[in-house]
């Protein structure tokens, strides 16, 4: 729990810096969506943010290699494809994901985001339940 709290606090600091300096919400799905339909003067910060995510990932490979060790062995490549399709469509239709609604929106006490977070966590629980029933494990 402690490392999760520290990790969470780092995320809180990161999204706060984005707001205080750039005035932007750090919603990952929205940032990606903006890169996919680029507008003038509104794309470079998004690309740089995504490059930052990747650079952080490279740092993690050295300081926290277990971050990329997955022990969910019941998934095939088709499960990842299926999940990706749902995540892409759902986040754009619902205007946000874990970061935009779950962190930034809840911190603003946005009713939309609080509701969205309750809904996506509930359906996430349902999804794991269905997955386990079909595959026998997570």
């Amino acid at each position, binding site marked *: 729990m402690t490392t999760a709290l520290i*990790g969470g606090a780092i995320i809180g600091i990161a999204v706060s810096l*984005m707001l205080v300096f750039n005035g932007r919400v750090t919603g990952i*799905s929205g940032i990606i969506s903006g890169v996919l*339909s680029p507008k003038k003067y509104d794309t470079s910060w998004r690309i740089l943010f995504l490059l930052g995510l990747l650079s952080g990932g490279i740092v993690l490979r050295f300081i926290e290699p277990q*971050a990329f060790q997955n022990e969910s062995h019941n998934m095939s490549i088709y499960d990842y494809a299926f999940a990706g399709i*749902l995540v*892409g469509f759902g986040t754009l239709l619902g205007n946000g994901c874990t970061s935009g609604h779950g962190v930034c929106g809840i911190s603003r006490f946005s009713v939309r985001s609080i509701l969205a977070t309750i809904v996506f966590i509930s359906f996430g*629980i349902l999804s794991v339940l269905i997955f386990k029933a079909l595959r026998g494990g997570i």
Partner: protein
Amino acid sequence: MKGLISFAVGILFSLGLGLSGMTQTHVVKGFLDVFGDWNLNLIGVMVGAIAVHSIVYHIIKRKESPLLDSKFYLPTKKDLDWKLMTGAAIFGLGWGWAGICPGPGIVSLVSGDPNIIVFILSMVVSMFGFKFFEKKFLS
């Protein structure tokens, strides 16, 4: 300068995700497995992030503008419509199915795991699909 901040925020965000367990599919799925072997740890991520950011947000919102721009770019929608609910439900189903949301997905690309690459490609194709769907049916 704004670009540099975005880049730095990306790095920090990524480290936070990696340290907290958000990039590990079994940790995320374990968090959503409330009727099974529930791994409560990830509550710490939300609590930590929201604790910090809610304080900063409520201080900074009194300012006219952020430090490097002329205005804040905050969501203005208020309606609790079918799109919000259906979108969140579809996203939740996908998130639970593989244990990956967009941020950790991008970060995990550096592992070179073909499963992650497939996840991100499907997500991007699906986002393009949504944009097409939106133009045809929602506008």
